[in-house]
């Protein structure tokens, strides 16, 4: 819970989003930027390919001392340190260059449609300027309009800026990781100094639990273990010593990395690990990864590309119609000033001012919905990205698996038994009647150093915290489930001596008194690597009876061992030996160092295999991904066999598909002779990947539908992601370590683990899975696809009325009618009545099973495609314009101006000096009376559009199905939207009808209903369209009318 709140606060208090600014950048100077990007990309690749240029681990202590002119005993002098500090800078990561807030704000002010609206506003003011210079009493209408337009831009800009400000800064967590203090030897004295004062050559001491203050070459230590997961992704603690063990600085044991945690250092006399600082600040491994992550340029999210595409379409339409009609107006001998005002009207009518804000709101609504389902979205646009994802590169540990060792199989009495590996392990069904089981379970219980942390009596066994390593924990929990109170059993079988596990022995042994008071024998129990354990056995227990270990039983053992090992499980062998009382009386004192007791001729009892089992929800989720056309690729640092086994058990490699190796084995052919096309699946190791050219990788990714990458390094993950992106795929990457952060950033959508994930990963990611569960991704995909569909509907809904807003201006110019709808009125539609309904479409349910279709193609399935634009503009839009014009003509005709009379009336109508203009009945009108009538016309036109937008809203609920199939009342928010439309219109007409600047009047009630038949017509027409689409799928009609 605590954790969750923390993550939430990350989202809420987040400050910045590098991506967006980059995006804006890109928009502004694309050509230039592309080049830059390319250069940067190349640079980055070089960085990746280049092995880390670090040789300090190969040097001896003396060489190091010379290299860094320091002394291991006395350390650097303060003067030296100060000099080095001045030279290299403090030991901290430099935050990335931040765009200043004002620039970010200004960028919002000019993005999207803003430029068009600014042009409109400026034209308005220019028009007023010209008017004013001609006639000082000219009306202020244009000034108002200009100001309103400017206000609209500023408000939407502020809104967008606010949204942007809700994202987080990737570097913030790196800064947080820096340890506060470091114990350093300088001037032969131990000093505690702030860690950012460390310089290269400093001698530091690290205690267990400390964070390593810089990249440190270990000089002396014993039993030091570090958690390197944030750098290399290895989840198990890594031992550190002073020996140079590997060429690669990442693998060698004598280097501890900046920001990793030192887990333990064995007890005194040493107590601490001493090391020499070899890299500080940005030059550390983690610093390089961090700069790599922030250096990875963000791709535009698919939805950002789509919206940009849409903005281009709309702006293109607006500008071209505007210019065409400007030319027409000028050639029709209108004054240039008038033509400019027409241009403004056309721009305002064409630009859906409220749409971008609506899209943002829609996305954030979905983001909230996803957060409830454990997908926390940091970058709003990522909401949709998940929906268009075509490849998921998933981690294994923790995401696909439960991230804890669990007993999976047992082998005793020549039989393999299956243990329950589900999350609670409550359902252990194997046969427990055998006496062998009794012995085996006793060994499991006794030969184990792990213990439950005290004070967890009420906690379910599986959730109890255990002190001990992963396999011991698994065994402890297993025995606790099987036998009950383990600690009690151990108490009754008191331990008298023990040899802990070490890598040379590969076994663990302990000697116990038995709980039977009559049996004075000691029991020696042993577990360890099966082959080592078997070596020490001379007998084997079958059905409780000891039998000599002959060839056939050894064979059976090997078969079982290979079988269990072959499915990627970690196998342990168990054996025991009762010491005879005569040789080892009760008082015998065992000496583990001298080994004064037998360690051979044991009785082999059984094998037990453990695995990190897949989460129970994962196979289902993988199947769902499959049917949704999403390729799931496993990328893991784990062993290929384990990886493959898990992949098989979760369905990443499906039951009937084979790898090239499998086919080779089945057909008994060499691997080279197998036709690679036959193999659906592939298991590729990091070593193989290293030798692959990008083309080979492309081929691999294209030809195999089921791929597992094993033993991959963090940098290779990035290469894999890039490979997938070359296939035009939208790639989702899951990750938890710092090492994953470049890949997370590179991916179209990076998904970090909420529980296991490091802060850096969370910051680099676009999305955080609060429950670390792969299945949550599927939910995200579903929501993402839904939102894409619904955004289509929203945009279609919003675009439709643009034609109804635009036609009045065109007809006004061509036919000289009194203006049917004013610019300000248009703004009231775009930013008033239409807002809530278009958001309401976001709540629409999917029309069919969206998880049964392929992910959309990034370049082919556009958000706004030709059918959508054409159908909205040229079908429904025109119908709306028609309905609105009917209302307009009705208003004018009923007041005395029949349609024939208002044709080409514009000049006289707008002449302020004509105060006795005759209408069709011979009545004479003053200018103000006409103006008022014009406003009534605006209001009527507005109301008609509003009424028809209700029909538009209803038809946009579905794209293929009939409204009645979808259910008219299922989405209640739609009805809230409709109500809001009507209420806003009522308020504007009757409430604010007296405010002249708004150009609304009180409309006669009957005019509200003139457009109703047209609304019905729109609905019927759309139902017909959908009917034909359903009737003739794939036909000409379907292709051209389905958007």
């Amino acid at each position, binding site marked *: 819970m605590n954790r969750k709140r923390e993550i939430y606060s990350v989202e809420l208090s987040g400050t910045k989003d590098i991506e967006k600014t980059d995006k804006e950048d890109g928009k502004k100077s694309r050509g230039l930027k592309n080049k830059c990007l390319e250069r940067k990309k190349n640079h980055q690749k070089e960085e990746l390919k280049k092995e880390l240029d670090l040789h300090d681990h190969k040097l001896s202590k003396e060489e190091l001392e010379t290299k860094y002119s320091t002394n291991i005993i006395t350390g650097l002098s303060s003067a030296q340190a100060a000099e080095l500090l001045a030279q290299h800078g403090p030991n901290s990561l430099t935050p990335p260059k931040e765009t200043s807030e004002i620039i970010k704000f200004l960028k919002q002010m000019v993005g999207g449609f803003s430029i068009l609206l600014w042009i409109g506003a400026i034209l308005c003011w220019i028009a007023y300027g010209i008017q004013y210079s001609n006639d000082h009493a000219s009306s202020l209408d244009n000034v108002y309009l200009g100001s309103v337009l400017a206000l609209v831009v500023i408000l939407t800009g502020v809104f967008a800026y606010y949204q942007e400000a809700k994202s987080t800064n990737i570097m913030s967590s790196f800064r947080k990781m820096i340890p506060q203090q470091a114990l350093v030897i300088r001037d032969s004295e131990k000093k505690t100094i702030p860690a950012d004062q460390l310089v290269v050559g400093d001698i530091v001491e690290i205690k267990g639990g400390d964070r390593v203050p810089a990249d440190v070459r270990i000089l002396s230590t014993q039993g030091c273990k570090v958690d390197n997961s944030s750098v290399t992704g290895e989840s198990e603690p890594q031992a550190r010593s002073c020996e140079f063990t590997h060429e690669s600085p990442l693998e060698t044991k004598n280097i501890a990395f900046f920001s990793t945690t030192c887990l333990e250092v064995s007890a005194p006399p040493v107590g601490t690990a001493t090391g020499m600082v070899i890299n500080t600040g940005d030059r550390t491994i983690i610093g390089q990864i961090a700069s790599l992550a922030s250096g990875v340029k963000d791709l535009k999210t698919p939805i950002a590309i789509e919206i940009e595409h849409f903005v281009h379409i709309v702006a293109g339409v607006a500008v071209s119609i505007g210019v065409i009609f400007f030319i027409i107006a000028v050639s029709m001998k209108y004054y240039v000033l008038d033509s400019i005002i027409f241009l403004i009207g056309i721009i305002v009518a064409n630009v859906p001012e409220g749409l971008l804000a609506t899209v943002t709101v829609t996305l954030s609504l979905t983001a909230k919905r996803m957060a409830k389902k454990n997908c926390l979205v940091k970058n709003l646009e990522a909401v949709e990205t998940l929906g268009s994802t075509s490849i998921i590169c998933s981690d294994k540990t923790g995401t696909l698996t439960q991230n804890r060792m669990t007993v999976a199989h047992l082998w005793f009495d020549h039989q393999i038994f299956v243990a329950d590996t589900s999350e609670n392990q409550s359902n252990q069904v194997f046969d427990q009647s055998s006496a062998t089981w009794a012995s085996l379970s006793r060994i499991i219980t006794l030969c184990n150093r792990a213990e439950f942390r005290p004070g967890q009596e009420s906690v379910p066994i599986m959730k109890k915290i255990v002190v001990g390593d992963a396999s011991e924990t698994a065994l402890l929990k297993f025995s606790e489930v099987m036998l009950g109170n383990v600690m009690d059993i151990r108490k009754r079988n008191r331990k008298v001596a023990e040899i802990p596990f070490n890598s040379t022995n590969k076994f663990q042994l302990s000697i116990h008194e038995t709980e039977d008071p009559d049996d004075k024998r000691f029991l020696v129990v042993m577990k360890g690597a099966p082959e080592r354990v078997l070596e020490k056995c001379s007998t084997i227990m079958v059905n409780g009876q000891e039998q000599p270990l002959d060839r056939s039983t050894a064979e059976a053992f090997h078969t079982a061992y290979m079988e269990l090992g072959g499915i990627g499980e970690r196998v342990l062998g168990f054996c025991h030996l009762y010491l005879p009382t005569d040789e080892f009386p009760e008082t015998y004192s065992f000496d583990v160092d001298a080994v004064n007791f037998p360690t051979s001729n044991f009785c082999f009892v059984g094998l037990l295999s453990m695995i990190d089992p897949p989460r129970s929800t994962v196979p289902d989720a993988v199947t769902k991904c499959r049917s949704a056309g999403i390729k799931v690729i496993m990328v893991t640092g784990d062993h290929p066999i384990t990886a493959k086994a898990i992949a098989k058990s979760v369905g990443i490699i499906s039951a009937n598909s084979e790898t090239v190796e499998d086919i080779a084995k089945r057909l008994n052919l060499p691997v080279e002779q197998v036709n690679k096309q036959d193999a659906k699946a592939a298991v590729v190791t990091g070593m193989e990947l290293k030798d692959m050219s990008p083309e080979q990788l492309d081929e691999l990714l294209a030809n195999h539908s089921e791929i597992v990458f094993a033993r991959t390094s963090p940098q290779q993950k990035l290469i894999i992601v890039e490979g997938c992106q070359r296939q035009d795929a939208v790639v989702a990457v899951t990750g938890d370590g710092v090492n994953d952060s470049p890949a997370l950033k590179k991916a179209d959508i990076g998904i970090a683990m909420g529980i296991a994930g490091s802060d850096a990963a969370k910051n680099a990611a676009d999305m955080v899975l609060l429950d670390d569960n792969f299945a949550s991704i599927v939910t995200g995909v579903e929501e993402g696809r839904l939102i894409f569909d619904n955004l289509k509907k929203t945009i279609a809904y919003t675009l439709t009325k643009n034609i109804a807003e635009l036609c009045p201006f065109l007809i006004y110019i061509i036919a000289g009618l009194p203006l049917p709808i004013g610019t300000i009125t248009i703004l009231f539609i775009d930013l008033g009545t239409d807002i809530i309904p278009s958001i309401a479409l976001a709540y629409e349910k999917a029309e069919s099973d969206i998880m049964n279709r392929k992910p959309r193609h990034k370049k082919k399935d556009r958000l706004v495609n030709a059918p959508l634009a054409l159908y909205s503009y*040229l*079908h429904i839009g*025109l*119908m709306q314009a*028609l309905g609105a*014009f*009917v209302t307009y*003509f*009705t208003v004018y*005709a*009923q*007041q*005395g101006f*029949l*349609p024939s009379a208002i044709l080409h009336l514009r000049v006289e109508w707008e002449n302020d*000096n004509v*105060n*006795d203009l*005759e*209408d*069709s*009945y*011979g*009545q*004479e*009108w*003053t*200018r*103000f*009376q006409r103006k*008022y*009538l014009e406003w*009534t016309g605006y209001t009527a036109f507005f109301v008609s559009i509003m009424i028809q937008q209700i029909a538009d809203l209803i038809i946009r609920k579905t794209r293929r199905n009939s409204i009645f199939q979808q259910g008219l009342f299922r989405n209640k928010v739609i009805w809230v939207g409709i109500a809001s439309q009507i209420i806003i219109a009522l308020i504007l007409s009757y409430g604010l009808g007296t405010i*002249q600047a708004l150009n609304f009047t009180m409309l*006669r009630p009957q005019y509200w209903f003139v457009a109703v038949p047209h609304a019905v*017509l729109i609905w019927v027409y759309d139902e017909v369209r959908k009917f034909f689409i359903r009737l003739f799928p794939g036909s*000409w009609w379907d292709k*051209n009318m389905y958007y």
Partner: protein
Amino acid sequence: MRRQLRSRRAPALPYGYRYRLDDQDEVNQNYLADEEEEAEEEARVMVVPDLEEEEEEEEEKEEEEKEEEDSHSQETDSAWWRKLQIVNEYLWDPEKRTSLARTGLILVIYFFFYASLAAVITLCMYTLFLTISPYMPTFTERVKPPGVMIRPFAHSLNFNFNVSEPDTWQHYVISLNGFLQGYNDSLQEEMNVDCPPGQYFIQDGDEDEDKKACQFKRSFLKNCSGLEDPTFGYSTGQPCILLKMNRIVGFRPERGDPVKVSCKVQRGDENDIRSINYYPESASFDLRYYPYYGKLTHVNYTSPLVAMHFTDVVKNQAVPVQCQLKGKGIINDVINDRFVGRVIFTLNIET
């Protein structure tokens, strides 16, 4: 495709000969298949015969042109041929079986769609006209209360003129003369009836019956009629200004009180205008001119006028004048509309 098909069919042998072939069945089937495809193609072509014809015409034209070019040079010929092929492929792409026909189909569908939309709007407008009477506007609340205009009017409500310079006021005279042509006594007597004053001239009967109009003779305006003084007083610095109330169908002054006109200085010294003569002397619009029955039936309706003769106005300074209608139910103080029930103008008479 078409071309290919034809070439495939070209070596087609007489039917009888075919029988002798070993694989006759197969050939037969192929032949049939070809026939089918051909038929299909024909059918497609037939959907849009117009377009195909157009194409062919185009092609023919081009071919003619081509032939002309032919004689000129061979190079242009090949260029033309290439162009022709491109055009041809655009019109009928043999590979994809798409053609201009498809674009044509779209156009046809749009044509029908818009035709039906046009039908819909025609229907709507027709219904609209059914519900609207051509004689009587459905609503008149927006045009009421009546507006006021003055004559002469030429773009501006400022009367600036110099008595001694006829050029400065001649256009007022011309304008007034022109305006009053319709009020000539002879014309009025010929066209209109002399109806009793002081009461509404109500003409019952069907809406569509032609209505008679009351005479308003130019001579009613006395000194401002331009009959005695053809300069309407402008030559003496005593300008006549005619005031006209906007026509409104069915408008009747309330309670039988005729609407009166009264002018005064709008701002400034009230004594700037020392005397105004009104013609007719009652300074009112007689009731007999109401109600107005509309343009269609009340053809010769003549708007009544009130002439204001500013006989003694301060000279050489701008005098703002406001003329208001007075009467029951008359509104003359709307802030936004300076022409409802009143009119404001300035007189600046220089001597």
